[in-house]
Every structure is written in structure tokens, then in C-alpha cells.
């Protein structure tokens, strides 16, 4: 992650602030910074979204490709995550410098989506054992302002919501299978994301914990908990990271916080996705020209 080296006094100032429920930008411990989001801004993709939270800027693109289902899951399509940390975000990421962070984000995304009940892979299957859709979800990190995991998961969910897979008609002719892919942009299959999880990262700072940590706060945090939370308030993929430890009581508190915030996050995200859909074609694409 972008290196932030803080002095001891700055760290203490931040720690006491968290304890006081007054963070360096005046937020309380469970407040998010405001998020801006736009979907469908890349025409080369099946679905795309850009999410910006303070300085964190993440672009997610979904590409649907035809492939064969893996032999142990013959009736399911696949979801593949790939994360790239662009050097645009910080020179540290040049060359292979961002790979470790990218792998970390990729692993957590894979883990939170790795449960059949929250993302329907069977809908991506065209012919069992033969043809299925593989959704490549590519996440591009363009700027870092802290809280990358949460923002990445928001971008992924929004991009999946925006995904419009062309309809496929299967016809069998003397045992030969023929696939016909519709090129009508309105004859499409949407991806169901209602139950997909969002990641909430809860950072332990001093004796309290916060959500949506800024870069400086992340530098003060020894242990953080990332958890995927669905709209149904179930939890997918919890994980403690960092070199610190937590006592069982505060672990429970942090999970409670994560669950509470995650529920809200999912709801707000769906609301604004629906809002954008309502604006429909009236809305001009903004992209990076804003």
C-alpha cells in the first residue's frame, strides 16, 4: 500500500481521536466518506463501474467469455477476479510493485464471492459440461486513499449489476451443437447481484475500531478485519489481517459493527444503482471528464 510513515505524535493524535469518536476529518467511528459511482462507462466490456471514495479510485470491468465448465462443477459458470494496481496510483506500484497488494485484494474478493448462495453461477451455464460463461472481473486501482477492499467490492458489485451478457440460443443439429449469440444490445441476460456481498473492513485503532479508514488511519492500525456482508446480514469470508491480535470480546464487537455497516452499505449501493438505472439514457456519461 502507498507508504505513509507517521510520527509517533501523529499516531497518538489519531488514536485518541478514534477513542473520542472524532476522527481527523470529523467523522465518527462508523461513518463512511461519501462515495461517487458510475456504471457502464467502458464500451469494450460487458459491464463496468467506477467508484470514487475520497482519493480512492477504482475501475472495474467485467468481460464475459465463452468457455468450458470445470469438470468438478459441470453445471456452473465461473467468476474470475483479477486485480491490477496501476502505477498511476503511486510509483511504488511500477512494474511488479503492486502485485502483492493486488493478489491480496483478489484473494479476498474470490473468498467473499466463493459461496453459491450469494452469487448464482448456475445461471452462467449454457450447456452443462460443455459451454458456460466465464465472467472475468478485472479491477483496476487508479488512486489510493485508503479502504481499498471495500471500494473494490463496491466497484465489483456495481460492475456486475451493469453486466449485460448477450442471450445465447442453443440449437442441436444432428448431434452438433450450435450456439447463436444475439447481437441485439437489448436482448441480454442480466446478472443477479441482489445477494452479492460487499466487503467491510473494520480497523482496530487503539482500543476502538473504525470503518472506512483513511491512509493515515491505516498506518495506525495493527489488526483489521475484512468481512463480506450480504444484504441478508449473512457473513461471507471473514479474515483478520495485519500483525496485531484481538481479544475475543472486541472481535465480536468488530464483527457486529461490520455486519451493521455492511447491511447499510449494500442497501445504499443498491439504491444508487437503481437510481442510476432510472436516470437511464438521459444521463450523460461522465467518466473522467468531470
Amino acid at each position, binding site marked *: 500500500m502507498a507508504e505513509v510513515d507517521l510520527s509517533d505524535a501523529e499516531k497518538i493524535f489519531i488514536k485518541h481521536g478514534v477513542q473520542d469518536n472524532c476522527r481527523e476529518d470529523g467523522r465518527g467511528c462508523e461513518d463512511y466518506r461519501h462515495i461517487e459511482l458510475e456504471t457502464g462507462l467502458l464500451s*469494450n466490456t460487458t459491464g463496468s463501474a467506477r467508484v470514487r471514495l475520497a482519493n480512492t479510485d477504482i475501475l472495474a470491468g467485467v468481460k464475459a467469455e465463452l468457455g468450458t465448465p470445470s469438470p468438478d462443477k459441470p453445471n456452473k459458470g465461473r467468476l474470475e477476479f483479477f486485480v491490477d494496481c496501476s502505477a498511476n496510483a503511486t510509483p511504488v506500484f511500477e512494474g511488479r510493485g503492486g502485485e502483492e497488494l493486488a493478489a491480496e485484494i483478489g484473494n479476498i474478493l474470490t473468498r467473499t464471492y466463493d459461496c453459491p448462495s450469494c452469487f448464482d453461477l448456475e445461471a452462467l451455464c449454457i450447456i452443462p459440461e460443455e459451454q458456460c460463461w466465464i465472467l472475468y472481473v478485472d479491477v483496476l486501482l487508479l488512486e489510493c486513499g485508503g479502504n481499498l477492499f471495500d471500494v473494490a467490492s463496491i466497484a465489483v458489485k456495481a460492475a456486475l449489476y451493469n453486466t449485460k451478457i448477450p442471450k445465447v440460443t442453443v440449437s442441436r443439429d444432428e448431434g452438433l451443437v450450435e450456439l447463436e449469440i444475439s447481437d441485439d444490445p437489448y436482448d441480454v441476460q442480466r446478472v443477479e447481484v441482489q445477494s452479492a456481498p460487499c466487503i467491510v473492513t473494520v480497523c482496530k485503532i487503539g482500543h476502538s475500531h473504525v470503518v472506512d479508514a483513511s491512509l493515515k488511519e491505516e498506518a495506525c492500525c495493527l489488526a483489521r478485519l475484512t468481512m463480506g456482508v450480504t444484504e441478508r446480514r449473512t457473513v461471507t469470508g471473514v479474515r483478520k489481517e495485519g500483525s496485531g491480535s484481538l481479544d475475543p470480546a472486541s472481535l465480536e464487537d468488530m464483527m457486529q459493527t461490520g455486519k451493521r455497516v455492511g447491511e447499510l452499505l449494500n442497501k445504499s449501493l443498491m439504491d444508487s444503482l437503481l437510481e442510476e438505472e432510472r436516470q437511464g439514457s438521459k444521463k450523460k456519461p461522465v467518466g473522467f471528464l468531470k
Partner: protein
Amino acid sequence: MAGLELLSDQGFRIDGRRSHELRKIQCKLGVFSQADGSAYVEQGNTKVLAAVYGPHEIRGSRSKLLQDKVLVNCQYSMATFSTSERKRRPRGDRKSQEMTMHLQQTFNAAILTSLHPRSQIDIFVEVLQSDGGNYCASVNAATLAVIDAGIPMKDYVCACSASYLGDSPIVDINYLEESSGSPEITVAVLPKSEQIVFLEMNGRLHEDNLSKVVDMAVKGCKDVYGVLDRTVREHVSQVGSSLET
């Protein structure tokens, strides 16, 4: 040309342009706040982001340090979703390494490198969507980002491509035209002094036609310059006026 008519009898190209017309260029300076300079350029459907860091202390091995001038360090990278067929890697392949080198050469020629000895300038380019002319858009975006960072350079560097179709040159070719097998010439120029700082040609072209195509590309560069300069002037005026209050 496989059933595709790249140039109609009326002289219109596949996207409706005439042979000398550029695609629509939209650009913006200062997209990000953490980089010293950044810019975004859209040329038709090709979309590129550029960020500039520096001049700053040399990072990593100090053996790269140059005593008398600044080290210009570039990276060209393409988002995995930028192409119509998904790319497996954003960078590190031969093509992007070549692009990285070209960018480095181009900007070494344009930046006044002797002003910042012993330091380093990073120019990072990220192609978000590719529809032909990636290198041109990258150079144009990087120029804007360098200007946004306030790094002194001799002149803008503007890049444009051109090809030869039927019996006339066409400018600023898109992906379909690029992949049709017709020759492609990419030129980067310093528009005011009319110096060519980069020139590359792919494909086969009769030598008689070379100068026509190059002229077309250089003309395209000057048109690009017009658009970029207008954007910079607007940006400086807008920000400058709020600075004064």
C-alpha cells in the same frame, strides 16, 4: 478487407469521417490529486489516463542516477479489459515494453532534461479502452500530464497516426482500419518547431506515397495540438482565476 468497406465511394470512412478528419478528442487535466500531474484523453473510443510524478529523488538503485540531467522513466500499461478480447496481463509483454521505450524516447526529446539534474520524472500511462491509436493517445495524454505537473518542456508533443487507403492517405486510424492490413504510420512531433521526435511505420507502402502519408500525420498532429492547447488554456484560465480571488 473481408467484406468491410473501409472507404466508401463517397469518401466516407467506416465511422463516417472524411479522410482528413480526426476522431473527436476530449481531454481533461488534473484528474487525480495525488500525482504531480495527471490527464485523461479520449480520442474517439480510445481512452487513456496518464499520471506524472516528479521531478523527485531517484528511487531504487541509484545507479540509474544521471549527473547532468533528469531520468525520464515511463511505463505503458493496458487495462486487462481495455481490448475487445481480454488481455491476460496489463504489462510486461513485448508490445507494452516497446511502447514504454518509445514513450521514454519521445519525452526525453521534449522535456528540458538538463534543468533537474540527479532527479527522476515518472510518466505512467494506463490505456482504459483501446480502439486504435493507443500510442498517439498515450503521448497526447502524457503531454497534458507533464504540462499539468509544471515540468518544463520545449513544446507540446503531439502524436497522430495515418494510413493509406485506396489512393488517398487517411488520418487518425481506428482499430478496424488498423487491423485491415493497410500500412500505419505513427508520428510524434513538436508542433511549433515542426520537428518529428518519433516516427514508426508498419506494413507496406509505396515510397512515392510515403511523404503524402507523413504529411497527413503531421497535419493531424497539428490539429491535435489545437485541441490540446485549447484545453490547457481553458484549464489554466479557470484555475488561475480562482487562484487570484
